[in-house]
């Protein structure tokens, strides 16, 4: 059941028609004040031809529209980026018309790809990956075209190409920061925080007085503002990574505690009675029934904590640190107006956070395959 708008876009060549019109219109508009009309800039002419040609092909042979729109959208984008060397900061209406046309063509491509329902599992997986990749790539393409075409100051927003250049030139610094922040503070803090939360949850579950006494204290710990705690941790554990790991422990402990306590109560009454009829002991019930039943809850906490840990470690580095670390780099490079370096660190953090989250999700799927949300 696709909605009407999507249906219309997929079945009618509205987007390619608009893209083709934008291409034809662009040929009559200006490229920039200096370079004159679009027809005077060879790369923009090529871009317009690629766009118009792709649109025409989409109308002519609808069954080949995916390949045609893919080739056309990306060729156009390529020529537009190439033309920026000449037009940077002063792009005219023709340039923007072509940019919009290329974006319409990419949109059409994404819609057509999403509408595909391939029979084989392998092809389905490729489509499932291709759509978000396409989305991400075009986000970067438009970012590049707009920032450089309109001449946005790099202090406000550097183009992705500049971030990429900076990234490649600073690999050693980024790697050292990654080791300091992620491999030490995040991973060690995460393991300690989640581990402690789990153990305390089992204890809380076992002993009623802890449930009444410790759970409210845990609530309080979770409400502690990290900004206030981080400097105190630096005083206690020093400038190096242990103080950041301590902040991560405080941030990750409580979600794990609450989720595991809830998970240990998740096993059904009948399933518990069953264990009772077998005269099973506490540990047997725990290991064979209650922990497996709690796994979806535990993984929920592990996923929440995978992102919390990274945030905690980076923010904690703002409050005193040796001269290495992702948070340290972000705070100092902002001060030096090296915004491209800040973006490079953000890229590392985003990449590391996503991979970490993805890894936890993969393990979750392998261990809770039986849960109704994953059953196939």
């Amino acid at each position, binding site marked *: 059941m696709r909605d009407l708008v999507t249906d219309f876009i997929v079945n009618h060549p509205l987007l390619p028609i608009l893209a083709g019109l934008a291409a034809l219109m662009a040929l009559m508009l200006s490229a920039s004040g200096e370079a004159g009309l679009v027809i005077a800039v060879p790369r923009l002419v090529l871009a317009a031809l690629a766009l118009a040609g792709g649109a025409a092909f989409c109308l002519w042979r609808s069954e080949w529209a995916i390949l045609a729109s893919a080739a056309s959208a990306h060729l156009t984008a390529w020529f537009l980026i190439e033309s920026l060397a000449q037009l940077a900061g002063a792009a005219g209406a023709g340039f923007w018309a072509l940019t919009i046309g290329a974006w319409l063509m990419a949109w059409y491509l994404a819609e057509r790809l999403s509408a595909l329902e391939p029979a084989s599992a392998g092809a389905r997986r490729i489509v499932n990956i291709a759509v978000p990749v396409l989305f991400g790539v075009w986000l970067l393409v438009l970012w590049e075209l707009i920032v450089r075409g309109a001449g946005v100051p790099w202090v406000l927003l550097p183009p992705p190409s500049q971030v990429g250049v900076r990234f490649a030139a600073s690999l050693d610094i980024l790697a050292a920061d990654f080791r300091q922040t992620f491999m030490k503070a995040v991973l060690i803090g995460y393991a300690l925080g989640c581990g402690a939360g789990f153990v305390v949850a089992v204890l809380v579950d076992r002993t009623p007085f802890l449930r009444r006494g410790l759970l409210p204290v845990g609530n309080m710990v979770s409400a502690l503002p990290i900004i206030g705690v981080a400097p105190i941790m630096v005083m206690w554990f020093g400038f190096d990574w242990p103080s950041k790991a301590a902040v991560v422990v405080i941030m990750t402990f409580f979600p794990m505690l609450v989720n595991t306590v809830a998970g240990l109560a998740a096993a*059904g009454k*009948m*399933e518990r*009675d*069953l*264990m*009772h*009829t*077998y*005269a*099973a002991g506490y540990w*047997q019930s725990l290991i*064979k*029934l209650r922990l*497996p039943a709690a*796994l979806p809850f535990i993984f929920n906490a592990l996923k929440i904590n995978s992102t919390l840990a990274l945030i905690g470690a980076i923010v904690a580095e703002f409050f005193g640190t040796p001269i290495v670390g992702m948070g340290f780099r972000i705070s100092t490079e902002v001060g030096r107006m090296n915004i491209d370096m800040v973006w490079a660190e953000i890229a590392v953090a985003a990449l590391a956070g996503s991979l970490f989250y993805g890894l936890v999700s993969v393990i979750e799927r392998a261990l*809770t395959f*039986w*849960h*109704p949300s994953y*059953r196939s």
Partner: protein
Amino acid sequence: MLETPTGGDEALTAVTGAADNQVIAIDNLSLTFQTADGPVHALSDIDLTIGKGEFVSLIGPSGCGKTTLLRVIADLEQPTTGTLLVDGVSPHRARLARAYGYVFQAPALYPWRTIARNVALPLEIMGLSRAERTERVARNLDLVNLAGFERKFPWQLSGGMQQRASIARALAVEPDLLLMDEPFGALDEIVRDHLNEQLLQLWAKTNKTVVFVTHSIPEAVFLSTRIVVMSPRPGRVYDVIDCDLPATRTLDTRETPEFLAIAHRVREGLRAGHSYDD
């Protein structure tokens, strides 16, 4: 009224003395639940003995305490007064000795375990060797016609197959006593008829004592050697009916006059015992 503790002990000795043939001996048993709305008399003055090899059905409308009575036998609920012996010992000791297998209303299979490992669950808890477990799992899955489904997960099987797997799991403990709480209540009638036939064959093959809770009259008459009719508020035994149909029963048995006569008596008992004031 004049009964002293000594008198109670004598009665207890009398029960154990005759225990050779008695698997369950219930004497003057009552159970009252304390709820926010005041006490609820779930069971009142129950007297019942069940002999070895019997198939006894507890039948009655909902709220008559038939499931509660089964749970008391299984040591899942504690009686307020009265005595109850299972295999001549208290239900608590009988449970620790794994004297019975319990089949619940729902299969209650663990979704993260395959069918084979679900059946092996009680055996793991009992600490049996791997070889013994494998052998018992194979034998009992075969008994309920589930051979070949060892590696499936419960949610890949139909409701009837899941309930058969849960029966295999109860049988794998190799108890002499099987307690079944409306095991087929959630299944459609065709599957239910089929499983009833299979259960009878199983009972004939293994010669176990079965206590079976149901609210279906045909099911009770078809399966049982004795039917205990219960009535609600307070839960009590209204009638005990011998069900002396021939040992080999098929679905056609249900059309015979003998079957219909017993079913009629059960229905009369249910009607008389049920208060229609509400």
